[in-house]
Every structure is written in structure tokens, then in C-alpha cells.
């Protein structure tokens, strides 16, 4: 038995895949499903570029086995926009120049979305600590924090 068959839901769509027993969810998403929006920056849970949610919980997909996704609900950056309509966070990141190279951006957006679901009105400090596991080497984080706050305000209807 060299591979495992897994039935799961990815961005709302029932999805089946086979993977090796030690294959990470990140590798499954990128190399088997074709969802390359989740990025590999470290494969050790230190950079957050592979952030997804599994059953609503924010995790690093490099620290989850594909096999563990059986019966789970996985949400990735590719499921964030509502069709052609960007999520307020996605819009805010563009408008506030909160990305430079853009490589950490999918992970940060997924993480920020999870934050705002739990805390619609975070302080700057809460944003910074929540995102401490999402490394960005380009921006110095300033515009990222501002973009998250702008999106949060928009989502609160302020």
C-alpha cells in the first residue's frame, strides 16, 4: 500500500486524491490538485506562506499530512474571492500596496481572514501577533497591518 486514497472538501468542492503516506497537505494541494496559491517557504511551520484552514482552524499546510484531510473541509487562497468579486482583504491589500513580491501574500490573506472571523475589530498589536507566523521580507509589515485594518473596517461596515 504505497498511497492512500483521501476524500475531502477543498474550497467547498468535494475532492478525492491519492497521496503518499508521508506527503504533506501542501504538496497535495500544489502538486496533485494544482492549487499552487499556497506557497512553500520553509516546510517547517516558520513562515506561514502555506497557510490554509482545515475545518475552520488556521494551520500551516506543510505541517499537515494529506492523509489527515480525510473528511475535512480545507480552505485555501483560491477559495477566498467570491467568483470575480475580491474579498475585502484582497482588495485592501492591492489598494494599500500591502504586497511587494506577493509571495507571502496568499498565506497572510488566509491568516488575516481567520483573524477577522474571530476578531472583527482587532488592535494593531493583535494583528501583529496573530500574523507573527507569516513572514514578509519586503514590506516591513507596516502596510500589511494597515490593509488588514482597512478591510476589517470595511467588513464591519464602518
Amino acid at each position: 500500500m504505497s498511497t492512500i486514497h483521501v476524500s475531502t472538501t477543498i474550497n467547498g468542492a468535494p475532492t478525492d486524491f491519492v497521496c503518499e503516506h508521508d506527503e504533506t497537505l501542501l504538496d497535495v494541494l500544489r502538486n496533485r490538485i494544482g492549487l499552487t496559491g499556497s506557497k512553500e517557504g520553509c516546510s517547517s511551520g516558520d513562515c506561514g506562506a502555506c497557510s490554509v484552514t482545515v475545518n475552520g482552524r488556521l494551520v500551516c499546510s506543510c505541517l499537515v499530512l494529506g492523509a489527515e484531510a480525510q473528511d475535512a473541509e480545507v480552505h485555501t487562497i483560491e477559495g477566498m474571492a467570491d467568483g470575480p468579486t475580491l474579498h475585502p482583504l484582497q482588495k485592501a491589500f492591492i489598494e494599500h500596496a500591502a504586497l511587494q513580491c506577493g509571495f507571502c501574500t496568499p498565506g497572510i490573506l488566509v491568516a488575516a481572514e481567520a483573524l477577522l472571523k474571530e476578531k472583527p475589530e482587532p488592535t494593531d498589536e493583535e494583528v501583529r501577533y496573530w500574523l507573527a507566523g507569516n513572514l514578509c521580507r519586503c514590506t516591513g509589515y507596516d502596510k500589511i497591518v494597515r490593509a488588514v485594518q482597512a478591510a476589517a473596517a470595511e467588513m464591519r461596515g464602518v
Partner: protein
Amino acid sequence: MTTDTKRNFKVVGTRPNRPDGVDKVTGRAMYGADATAPGMLWGKVLRSPHPHAEIVSIDTSEAMKLPGVQAVVTGADFGDPESLFVSDVQEHCMAKDRVYYDGHAVAAVAATSASTAAKALKLIKIVYKPLPHVTDVDAAFAHGAPVIMHHRAFEILPPGTSANATNFCEFGHGDLHEGFAKADLIVERSFRTAATHQGYIEPNACLASYSSDGRADLWCCTQGHYHVRDLCAQIMGMEAAQLRVTASEIGGGFGGKTSIYVEPVALMLSKKSGRPVKMVMSREEVFRATGPTISSSMDVKIGMTKDGRMTAGQAVIRASGGAWPSGTMEMGAQAAFACYDMPAVKTIGWNVLTNRPKESAYRAPGAPTAIFGVESVIDEMSQKLGLDPLEVRILNAADAGTLSSYGPTFNQIGLKATLEAAKNHPHYKAPLGPNQARGLSCGFWFNFGGNTSVSLAVNTDGTVNITEGNPDIGGSRASIGMMAAEELGIPFADVRTIIGDTASIGHNDTTDGSRVTFAVGLATIRAARDAIQKMCHRAAQIWDIDPDAVEWEDGAAKPSGPNAGQFPPMTIKEIAANAFRTGGPIAGHHEVNADGAGVSFGVHIADVEVDPETAHTLIKRYTVFQDAGKAVHPSYVEGQMQGGAVQGIGWALNEEYIYGADGRLQNAGFLDYRIPVASDLPMIDAVILEIPNPGHPYGVRGVGETGIVPPLAAVANAVTRAVGTRMTDLPISPPKIMAAKAAAGK
């Protein structure tokens, strides 16, 4: 060249959404590791566990027998490039008979899956004969150190030094002896700085496809695909035309993606296997085997009068760029005193070989460490003389007409204005809390211009496509498109900029030296002018008037005056619609080796708080002041200033390559190579100054690199003032602060 500083800009200076924004927030943008090809194999590299060893033998036979393995490559598969530079790069990508650092590539495998390739690496048997190693710059410079490459020593070595010293440089002017004699105070200090990594979040990755007819395609994340093509073509023994390199989206570079690592290996694996090969470095490989910056040790001596005027300055820099010769210390030696009007100045630089990976450029290479030493000594002298450190810098600041410490005489520069802005900013006078202190530093970077090709096509509907050849790392598609829209007098939305591959447009130098907004912008403006001239001709043809009597304004051709004829302006859309009837498609292009990049200065103010018991250092407030010449897209200019500052803060406080006594890198991961995280930082206030660069039509200066230069000293000076003892060894980690306080009896 005349700079149109009075110009009433319509697009330049605004903040439109970047054209690649949606792709990058939805996960659609394709980076180095995101491409696939039919029949693709996965390549992986076997790396040396020894810092220095002879390769006695390599046996790959068992690996080749593993089902799924399609090719194995070692140094024996590569030839000997004529150019010594290319030969060094090749040897760094794949060892031949010796390994020179922990992590040096010794073999590579291509297999049908990544896990099979990883298994195959374990079946390769290598016999090493370990050799003595040295990883510390001072130890490597000293007489008796293990010599890494005998045949690369500099022609004349000072007594007591080793043959590891490979490069030497000297800059300066004036009579040092006389200068120091005039000083009321002379301070001499030694400093050390650790090697740091660019820390881009995207690991190096590529997809190579070599066809049996001798043609090849290479997709990779790089700052310069033309440079990749030139290097790989020489290493592979190909003609440049047969290797097409496409730059993927790039997940950060900061200078670290200006060279090649796995690219020629992937090409060779593809050539041997006859199939496309994808290679993605792990984070550990990125740290162990791609270029960090130099590690350095330096001595700085400055003389000053009691009212703060510098009379003489001297710096001796010993830098190591790893196991191969490196000229980065030259830029440090040039930059060390570049901020100041020095009556007498001398800087000397040495490069020393160590058993470390080959250095790669890192944002303003050489400048941050050299300026750290100089700015620290200036701060100490200000303290000793009871002077305001900002006033001392204003008193000594270089200005238009100053003979720079590295040779040229400055024209219009912005240092004094930047210092004045810092002095007048509320931050400089804000009160400080307990255990807090304020530090400041100036910074400088040369900025590059360089070889650039831009092509601008006017579409039949009057919209415009620009093809340029520099990867967009931080919003350059936007700034280039904005300059084209500005010059053509059309909306930004009517312009789309793409990055061409090496076969689609002429040569472009690498995205480095903060050159893109300056040089590609300049070429784009001139390409637009070329197209404008052609469109004016078409209008003249339709109107049947002399082309010289047509001028361009607000996106339309119009007669230059009443005598030229009475015609309503003809818009770009009308001219484009008639193009096929007036001579065919319309395009502008420009090729240039751009000169006149215009130096850039910055001033940073850092407030820190140091825990008196644990020596934990927090940045409480931070402000960047920098001359951008003209900020094309101010948000992305601020972004460069903020990002550079934070990289410099990381360098000052926590980042370092840590080698054990065994010569192996101990912290090859983001866990222990500690780059700043979001919670470490306050907002980084960015104040843009605009002192136009006479070398650019809109006054633009490069802004990308200067920002990383001042933080090292700004933070060190602040910590020094907070703890009461001077911190001279970067990074200023808590154990070092505690030890320094203990040594000083504090």
C-alpha cells in the same frame, strides 16, 4: 539632460492599483516553483556535510539503479568555462574535485517523483578527505590560516596575513596626517558584522527543458534572466540564442537572486534525461548554499574638532564573500564616508576567503556594514564632545560640489535636505521613556543605471503595451506603466506592461542597484517619445503638413501653432485607428546604457527600549527620511523605505550566520535565522523627499537600497545610548549586550 521638475505630473506621483495585484492576491501568479511541464522530472541535490574536503570518489551506480531515477549529474558532467568568473559560479553550483563549504553541491538526481529523487540521493556514495577549514574572517586573514585557494591570493600581501586575501582596494583624498593633526578628538574603534541572508521567502526554483536538438527553455525565479541566460549558456556550452530564459514572478530577491544555483544543474539533468526537470530548493538549502552577504571586520578612525567638524577619516575593511573572490568590499570602502565632506579620507578594503557559500549581493552590498562603523564612531564622538549628533552630521554633510570620498564630485544631492527634514520632524524631539534611547544614522547608495531595452507598441485601439526585461519584484510594472502613461498623456489604465523573456526583447541588465525605476523608466519615456514622434508624423501625413509643425499634448497630436494649419487635435486612438492606412503598425523603442542614476541618501531615527535585566531590545518608534528624486508611485517608494529599514533592523539585532567549530552552519532555517516578525515592530514612518536627479527626465532616483544602510548604526547607536556602553559587534543580541554591560561594570 534637462529634468522637467516644473512639470505638472498627471499620473506620476499618484497611487494606482498595481496591474499584477489581482493575480497576486488570488494565488494565480506563477512563481518559480509553480510551473509544470509534460513528462516533468523532479531534481534534487546532494550536498557536502564538510566545510572543506577533497572529493576522493563519487559512486552513483546504486542511485541510477533505483526505479524512477532518470539522470544523475556530478561535477564531471560540466566542462571548464573560459571565464574565471563563470568558472567560479559553476563550481559553486556543482563541486568538481573539492568542496569548499558545508552545503556545497556534489551531485544531483532527476527522478519521476520528488521522494524517489530524495531516496536516490541517499544511495550516492562519496568518499571525502576532510581538509582544515576556516569560517571566521579575521581568522582567515591571519597568517597560518588554512588556505582555501592558493592561486587566488592578491599580488602583494601585507606581513602577517594569509593567502586567503584575494581582493584589495583603496580610495580617498587629502592628507590624513595633516587632517588628524588638526583634530581635537580622535576616536578609533573596531567593528564586526555577521553575514546575513537576503531571506527572500520564495526558495530558489526552476524548470529546465533541454531538447535533443540543442535548444533549451528555462523558467526560473530570478532578478535577471538575461544574466541567467549568459551564465547558463556558457556553462552548458550553448549559444545564447538557443537558451530562452523566462523570469517567473519572483518571491523576493534583495540581490540574492542575481546569480544561479540550481539552474545549470537542472539544465544538465534535463539534457541527460531528455525530459523537463523541475528543481526547488528547500529552505535549508537556501541558507546553506545560496549567497548570504559578506561577514566583516573593520577599523575606523576619525578626527574631529571640538565643534564637530571632521578633519580626517580612515577605514580598513576586511570582508569575506565566502570561498571565492568577491569585490563587494570595494563598494563598502567607497560608501563608508560618502555621506560627508571630508578634508582627508582614506578607505582600504580586503576580501578574505572563508569556507562559506559564495556571497551574493544583498541590498546596497557592502554599504550597510561599512557605514555602520563610520556612523557609530561619529555618534561616539558627538557624545564625547557633548554635541547633537544630527547637528554634527549637518555640519559635515556632503553637498553639491563636494569631492566625494570615492572620487566623483557630487552634483545635485539631497543629504542636507534629508537631515534638515529629520531635524524638523516631531520624532527627533519626542520625549523618551525609561530605558529608552534614540539613535540615528545616515545612509548612502550609489544607484545603478545600465543596459536596458524597452519596446512600446501602440495597439490599433490606441492602448499601449510595453515590453521590458526586468522582473517586477515590488511594483515596477506599475511605475513603468505610469511613466509611459505620463509621457503619452493617456490614462494609466490604457497601458499594460509585461516582462518579456530573453528571446522577446534586447538585453537588460539584472534588476539590481536600484536601477529599474530609473533606467527602465528612462528607456520607457524615450520609447514613448519615439512613438510620439512617429504618431506626429502620421498626423502630419493625414493633415498633409510638415511633421515638424506637429506637437504632442495630452495624448493627442496637434498643429504646433496657427501657421501650421487649423486642425483639431488628433488623439492617439484616432492615429492608431488609421495606422494601417498611414504606413503600418506604430511602435516606439529605446535601447540605452543608462548613465546618471543619481546617488541617494537617507537618514533614519530609531527609538529603542532595552530591558535592563534581560537586555531584550524593542524598536519603539522608527522614522525613515529618504530622497527619492521623484516618487513615481509613492506607496511603493514608502514600501521600499519601510522594507529596507526592517531588513536593517533584523541585521542590527538578530540575524546572523552561525558556524560551529566543525565549520557547519548551525541555523539554516527561519527558526534560528531570526528575521523580524510582525510583532517585533512599530509602524515604520516614511518621509519621502524629492530632490530631482538631473540624470532622469522626471528626476527619478533609485530608492530600493539606501533604506537598508542606516538601520545598523541607528539601532546600534540607540542601544548604546540606552545601555551606556558602545555596541560594536552585530548582531546586538541580548547575550552580547549583557556581556558588554558586565565588562563595562554597568
